[in-house]
């Protein structure tokens, strides 16, 4: 018996002292490598490094690091040149001719040509690929977001794109990873294995992906072959991402092992005012989707009562506390820009009803009277993320103060989306992120019959305004935005078909020596220009 004990203890100590790991993950937290190295904690994983099929923010960030497109966005959301050295735009805005750089190379040494763009774009819209983002440029569909008609490679260095109607945001969309080039020979060779490991990809961006342990960590190292490598000498040599989150990640940051970590709303108060707290706004618009198939919600007064009942200011400042800001309409702030660089929100102003408890109660009573009921019970559907839970609790409380009865339905995101698609909800806490820097990405959602119009909102007035913006006024940027502004008013103010709540913010702890992270609400956050002070 004693022997058993002794050997058991010895085993335990051995297990504890062994420092030889299995050769699976090789995540490095920046110790001992030459040059400047940064470690970033993220709470979402890379879904796919295949630019034709990836759909999530983290994959896009990774793709932006190690690949490149025709253009890239600078700090002010203005598209500047990347792989396209320059471009000519025809007078009528229907023809774009891109001049690809002669020294653009793939990481295996082959030259990067206009044909790579043709191949990649064809692949994106290929029905076999079934890409989520085909709708951006699908020339074979009835219509596509950018109004593209066709594209060709006139020679190795010239890539020509023709549109059927002008598109204000086409150039900034060229910075989107779905439109990045692909080396046809390499991709076809790899077949099923393309982009599954670091060896099954080619790189043309400022960094290359040198290590990737799925769902754990990934590492980028500077790419000397990048056409602009010369301007990257001051930037970090190595960037590590780790999939960790929560309080232990925050502790690791404080111990100096991580340079960037997201703060949860519960702990934000304690870090308020500290110099390494960084707040930014994302482009996510969180709103309440109201299902018009519900008898009570079909009543305008009931909907108005709900809108008046919720105090978005208090929601953002006391509940979320992460830099989120109240929405003035459904379109977010600082994410859209027209040709003159103006923000759509400045043009449209404030269209939400605002918080007014007295008006809320009034509208509620009026609505009940019209419906002939004494009470209204609504089921509130939301996902099981902490942020949504807190927001939903607040919203339900606010509604109840005005007279509603609420029931909670908390589900994982997929189930929530499924329920919404199956018309199985009353009120749902939903969000929309912009795909490009134009209000159209939001306004499209609420047209009659749109696939994302879960609430079945139907308004001729709204539909005709949107139609006008997309057809008649397509060439006139100012008129187009005016149409959108009016439509937004109808949607939010007159019909209150949805209730915009807040624009999601992001608060993080960032090493004060780390600079250069660029946030693009309507694009992909850019980590290419990170610099680490000594």
């Amino acid at each position, binding site marked *: 018996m004693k022997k058993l004990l002794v050997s058991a203890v010895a085993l335990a100590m051995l297990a504890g002292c062994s420092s030889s790991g299995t050769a699976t993950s090789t995540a490095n937290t920046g110790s001992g490598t030459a040059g400047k190295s940064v470690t970033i904690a993220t709470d979402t994983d890379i879904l796919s490094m295949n630019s034709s099929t990836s759909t999530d923010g983290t994959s896009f960030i990774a793709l932006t690091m190690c690949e490149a497109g025709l253009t890239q966005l600078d700090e002010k959301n203005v598209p500047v040149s990347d792989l396209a050295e320059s471009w000519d735009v025809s007078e009528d805005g229907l023809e774009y001719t891109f001049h690809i750089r002669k020294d653009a190379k793939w990481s295996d040494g082959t030259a990067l040509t206009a044909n790579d763009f043709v191949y990649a774009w064809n692949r994106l819209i290929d029905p076999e690929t079934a890409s989520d983002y085909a709708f951006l440029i699908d020339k074979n569909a009835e219509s596509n977001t950018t109004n593209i008609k066709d594209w060709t490679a006139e020679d190795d260095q010239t890539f020509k794109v023709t549109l059927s109607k002008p598109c204000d945001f086409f150039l900034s969309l060229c910075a989107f990873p779905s439109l990045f080039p692909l080396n046809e020979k390499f991709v076809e060779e790899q077949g099923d294995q393309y982009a599954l490991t670091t060896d099954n990809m080619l790189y043309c961006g400022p960094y290359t992906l040198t290590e990737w342990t799925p769902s754990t960590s990934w590492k980028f190292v500077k790419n000397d072959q990048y056409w602009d490598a010369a301007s990257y000498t001051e930037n970090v040599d190595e960037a590590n991402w780790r999939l960790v989150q*929560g*309080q232990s990640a*925050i*502790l690791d940051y404080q111990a100096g092992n991580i340079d960037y970590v997201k703060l*949860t*709303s*519960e*702990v934000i*108060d*304690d870090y308020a005012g500290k110099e390494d707290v960084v707040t930014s706004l994302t482009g996510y618009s969180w709103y309440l989707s109201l299902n018009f198939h519900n008898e009570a919600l079909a009543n305008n007064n009931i909907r108005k009562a709900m809108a008046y009942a919720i105090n978005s200011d*208090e929601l953002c400042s*006391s*509940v979320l506390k992460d830099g989120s800001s109240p929405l003035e309409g459904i379109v977010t702030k600082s994410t859209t820009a027209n040709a003159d660089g103006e923000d759509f929100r400045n043009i449209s102003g404030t269209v939400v009803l605002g918080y007014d408890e007295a008006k809320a109660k009034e509208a509620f009573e009026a609505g009940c009277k019209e419906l002939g009921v004494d009470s209204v019970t609504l089921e509130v559907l939301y996902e*099981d993320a*902490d942020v949504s*839970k*807190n927001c*939903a*609790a*607040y919203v*339900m*409380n606010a509604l109840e103060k005005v007279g509603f009865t609420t029931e*909670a*339905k*908390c*589900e*994982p995101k997929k*189930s929530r989306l499924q329920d919404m698609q199956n018309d199985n909800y009353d009120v749902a806490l939903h969000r929309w992120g912009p795909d490009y820097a134009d209000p159209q990405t939001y306004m499209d959602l609420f047209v009659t019959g749109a696939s994302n119009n879960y609430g079945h909102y139907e308004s001729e007035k709204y539909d005709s305004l949107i139609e006008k913006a997309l057809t008649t006024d397509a060439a006139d940027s100012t008129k187009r935005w005016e149409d959108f502004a009016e439509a937004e008013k109808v949607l939010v103010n007159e019909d209150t078909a949805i209730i915009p709540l807040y624009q999601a913010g992001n608060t993080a702890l960032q090493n004060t020596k780390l600079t250069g992270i660029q946030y693009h609400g309507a694009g992909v956050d850019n980590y290419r220009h990170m610099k680490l002070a000594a």
Partner: protein
Amino acid sequence: MSQNLNYEFSEDDFKLAHDSNDKLMDKNFVATSYAKDVWTNFKKNKGALIAAVIIVLITIMAIIGPGLNEHTFKSIITEHANLVPRIPGLEKLGIFDGMRNGENQYVAKGFQDVYYWFGTDALGRDLFTRVWSGTRISLMIALVAVLIDVCIGMIYGLISGFFGGAVDMIMQRIAEILNGIPTLVIVVLFGLVLKPGVTSIIFALMITGWIGMERITRAQVLKVKEQEYVLAAKTLGAKDFYIIFKEILPNIFGQIIIESMFSIPNAIFTEAYLSFVGVGVPEPTASLGSLISSGYNSMITYPHMLMIPVVVLALLMLSFNLLADGLRDAFDPKMQNK
């Protein structure tokens, strides 16, 4: 050496080894019923007694607690968010005085006369009400789940053990197969398939919880089946089900009670785990599990949000376990002499 056989023995040389004046009397035991016997033994176990008292106290609090102050479990006052506990009488003693990092939170925010006995959570809800309301839900879930488990498991075990043979073999195989499925997976999947709520949690807990009960019951039935009074009943012509429920069951009931006492903390704990994974009771209803899981998010900044429900949970689990241990010892005749 020669023995001196002429030794004169006196009166004092010999003393009685035992006091023969003590008549050997049987100790008179008052005739007690089985239940009273158990109770007497139980009382000897101090730990179990204290545990029983604690359970009763907590149950009382769970019933009356939520009504003790003006807050409900879901009322939100955002200005009062993140406050540490402050109790009117005790604050003069230096504990529960609303102090955090050296300053009185309440005074600093301008709330001189506001008191939250257990503090508030991140949204501004009163923790005192939420904790007791949550205890209520947790206890309810546990009791219902265990009750159902006992019924199913007991009946399953009784039938399987009594009839034996092919019936037993098939039933046992089925139970074994069901036991082989990892509960976590099934329970979480159930939580996703059914509408999240108290009913689905009880349902999920039910799925495999009865197997432990079934095993104990069957083992006991097998033991008792061979006893002579069962044989006697059979000879007298008693039907099978009569024997099962009137002869065997009362004799194994003790074990069943013990096992159910052990299952209760198990159920509470599984519910807590489910909450952490995300398939617990929906907002704003609180259960001990969901309180712990949301309190966990503030652990390094406001530990009271986590610690208070953890203490209540720990007390409950501890008490039920000690109680069950005590009951087991009390029911076991071999323990009587200690």
